[in-house]
């Protein structure tokens, strides 16, 4: 991080490679839209670069980045849920890039996640994909610890039910 702040492109690339997969996966699991997830993760890195010169080097980079990613993903997912998307209006739609066909377990996992609210999904992703503790999640999302625990419990129950059903 310090080397990247000092202007080292190679160190920046190392930082990017280290954090990209987690950021992209976290965004995708919250928004369930590959293009949006790519934009969200990319914008988070761009925000980080814009703030490089003022970033406190004593703070770890990962939580800072993940806070941006998850909050933006929540905002996007909420907006998507609240608004009705409509089609063409005389504009030809080109099919989106084909996405890999998930197997049954992945389908169940994604549909179980989709049944949760964006806020619940975010907590689950932070806990089980990015490995933050409930206390750290509470700090990242500025939520009471009890709220984090209850969202984790509900999310875990929903996922366990689906995943167990599929793997049993």
């Amino acid at each position, binding site marked *: 991080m310090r080397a990247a702040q000092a*202007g080292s*492109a190679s160190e*920046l*690339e190392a930082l*990017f*490679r280290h954090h*990209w*997969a987690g950021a*992209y*996966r976290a965004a*995708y*699991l919250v928004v369930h*839209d590959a*293009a*949006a*997830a*790519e*934009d*969200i*993760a*990319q*914008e988070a*890195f*761009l925000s980080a*670069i814009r703030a490089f*010169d*003022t970033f406190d080097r004593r703070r770890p980079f990962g939580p800072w980045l993940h806070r941006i990613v998850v909050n*933006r993903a929540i*905002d*996007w997912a909420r*907006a*998507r849920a*609240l*608004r*009705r*998307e*409509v089609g063409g*209006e005389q*504009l*030809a*739609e*080109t099919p*989106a*890039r084909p*996405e*890999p066909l998930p197997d049954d*377990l*992945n389908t169940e*996992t994604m549909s179980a*996640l989709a049944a949760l609210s964006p806020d619940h999904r975010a907590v*689950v*992703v932070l806990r*089980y*994909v990015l490995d933050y503790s409930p206390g750290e999640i509470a700090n990242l999302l500025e939520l009471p610890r009890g709220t984090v625990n209850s969202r984790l419990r509900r999310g*875990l129950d929903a*996922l*366990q039910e689906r*995943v*167990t059903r599929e*793997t049993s």
Partner: protein
Amino acid sequence: MSEDRVRSALRQVPLPDETGAAERAWRTVDAAFEARERILWKRRRRGPLVALVAAGAIVLAALTPPGMAVVDRFRDAVGREPSQPALVKLPAPGRLLVVSPEGPWVVHEDGSKRLLGDYEDASWSSRGLFVVATRGRQLVALDSESGEPRWSLSRTEPVRDARWSGGGLDTRIAYRAGDTLHIVAGDGSPDAVVADDVAPIAPAWKADSHMLAYADAAGRVHVVDADTRRQLWRTQTVKGVRELAFSGNRLAVSTSTRVIVFRRGNPTPFLHLPRGHVLLDTAILNFGGVLYADYDPQNDATALFRSDCTIAGACLLMPDTRMFEGPGRISNLVTSPDREWITAGWPAADQFLFFESAPRRLGKVDAVSNVTAEFSPGGDAGGVFPEITGWAPPSP
């Protein structure tokens, strides 16, 4: 059933085009890193000046400025403070660029202003170190603090719509000379023609990249790589294109009635005004949300709406948040560098409006009156209302 199994399931979900996404993002991030300008923060002793200006503002605020009565109808609804009779400070860090018949003015956060010279139009460089101005057939790059010209070039056709991109030593300016689109390096050379027969609207750069969008005279929007002049993609014909703006990887194309968002040429309708209404202006907010000015000619009134839906998540036909409304036309929407505030010009009230871009609620609204006289000192009453052309970061 353990947490480990859930953890494993979540980590096994395949990500669409994971490698391609990483490479595309890395190219963008790398380009942004190369283009950034490092900011050296200086602390300035401005206490006495701020105190003096604030005291003056308190005295003047007791007066009733023109236009205030009109605005007050909306104060309760949107939490607007009483209007200020002069632009004594900006609500957010940064500097405004305001163009009046006198020329372009740089307005600092403390309200102090500098007239840059006798130019017709002007816009900021990406980091606000320079201003690119036009005068007749001339394009001029100016130091934003001193107003001193750094270089200029002349063309045989009138020069318009100059837009700056990039930072440090890697900068480019796109501009129109007549119906020809040019790109010139930030140091004034070399200059190259990108396209002929372009529409009379400003080109738009994708932030921190070399991607440029422009509309041709037939209404097709093209996105090109500024270095190679190679077309990356283009849209089908869009009737009445008036404004182009990038938000991340998406391009918002505005007409007089609607906004269409394109991602690599694929269109998604974003906004369509009611029949008979006119879309005066749009501004992209934090994370791709949009503020837009909806003018109703029958009532001669403009309503400013905020769509919290993002450019990335296209949407339509759902009620948006009404931020403000007033008689006449309200437009000229410009966002602050941190995109936390938006300013708008309201000629009927002779006011600049400043809106706090608070998510999911109505934010604060500040109004500043008497702006025509403020930017045309010594000019006639009934002068030309000034135009805000940009809001740049604070001086380095």
